[in-house]
């Protein structure tokens, strides 16, 4: 049983993600932000406007995202070989109704638009001489609501309903194929991995709902979540009428009391993914588990 548990955790480890983020003040109401996550660097200003006495805050963050040239060194080199960029505009408005006493309640509305360009290379004849280039533009849109409600007393239940709508039209390179090279002068045959096919795109529309629950005691919070993904046909802007999948997750987050390292949470969930329309390479019903460790994120950050 113990061996089975260890094996399961090892299998789940690829799902664990780490991020590095820094925020610094540039001018009154303007911060500079940089972050590195999954081999991508993102940087730009963050404009904050706040009227705390009226419970209103507004944030505008235009940023640019580029893939790191050298992930091990966290190094970005921009030159004529730079083949990918993304421009992102994020906006957030929060209305907090909390007063000196009584209930704690707030509503936060967010939106994000991404627009980017990628220069893809592929080799239709399976040799370097047949290189083709194809520049493609991708675009995503996301709208989000995060609420928070509690009676504001010790041991009171805390609830955070969260809703998200996402549309994505992201071009991706085709998979690599093994190409058998002609024998060299010693008669040795080698294989090279090359991309044969041009890039492809499918559009995705994904509504999601989650309810964050902290029962008012203990170091655990609970987050049931439901996602419904509509995936369109290849090379189409329309995400509807092809493939649909329903996904259910039930996260349990643990908040360790680490000295000098606040807001760390460790999450684990089983998941169930059910194909409700169309066909794909997966089984009609897929299931498994996920683990995550998040740094610098609170109970409110989930979807």
């Amino acid at each position: 049983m113990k061996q089975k548990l260890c094996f399961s955790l090892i299998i789940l480890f690829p799902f664990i993600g780490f991020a590095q983020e820094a925020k610094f003040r540039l001018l009154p109401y303007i911060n500079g932000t940089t972050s590195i996550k999954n081999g991508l660097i993102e940087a730009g200003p963050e404009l904050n406007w706040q009227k705390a006495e009226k419970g209103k805050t507004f944030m505008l963050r235009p940023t640019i995202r580029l893939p790191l040239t050298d992930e091990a060194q966290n190094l970005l080199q921009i030159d004529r070989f730079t083949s990918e960029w993304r421009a992102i505009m994020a906006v957030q408005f929060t209305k907090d109704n909390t007063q000196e006493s009584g209930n704690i309640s707030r509503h936060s509305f967010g939106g994000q638009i991404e627009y980017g360009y990628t220069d893809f290379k592929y080799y239709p004849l399976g040799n370097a001489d047949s290189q083709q280039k194809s520049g493609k533009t991708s675009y995503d849109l996301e709208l989000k609501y995060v609420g928070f409600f509690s009676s504001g007393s010790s041991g009171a239940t805390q609830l955070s309903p969260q809703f998200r709508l996402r549309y994505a039209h992201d071009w991706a390179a085709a998979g690599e194929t093994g190409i058998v090279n002609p024998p060299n002068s010693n008669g040795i045959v080698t294989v090279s991995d090359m991309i044969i096919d041009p890039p492809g795109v499918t559009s995705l529309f994904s509504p999601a709902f989650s309810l964050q629950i902290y029962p008012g005691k203990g170091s655990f919070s609970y987050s049931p979540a439901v996602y419904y993904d509509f995936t369109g046909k290849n090379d189409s802007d329309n995400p509807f009428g092809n493939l649909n999948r329903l996904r259910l997750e039930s996260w349990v987050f643990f908040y360790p009391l680490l000295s000098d390292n606040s807001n760390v949470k460790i999450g684990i969930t089983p998941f169930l993914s059910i194909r409700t329309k169309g066909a794909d390479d997966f089984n009609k019903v897929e299931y498994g588990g996920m683990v995550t460790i998040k740094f610098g994120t609170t109970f409110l950050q989930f979807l």
Partner: protein
Amino acid sequence: MAGKKSVLLAPEATRDFTLTLEPVSGGITLFYAFINGVKVIQSDGTDKKTWAGKIPDAQVRIKVRVIGIDNASFIIGLDLPGTADDQSLTLKLQGGYYETEIML
């Protein structure tokens, strides 16, 4: 972000004041601070929050409310330049919540 404000400026003499709230350990979700009933800090608990401004020389009531997970801890910092030494209190939530009132 620190704000240099005088929302509490009274006709009488005033003094400078800085209030900070900072997460220490565990999950801190939201920080709130009120000075004489006026909300001056409303923020998530991801990092240190500061309010700096002028408050009346007369007695001032500061109320802090913090929401989080279980018995997470945080620091309240009070600074009255030229009047008193900086004060710093490390406090623990009880059942995911803590509130306190301080008179200055």
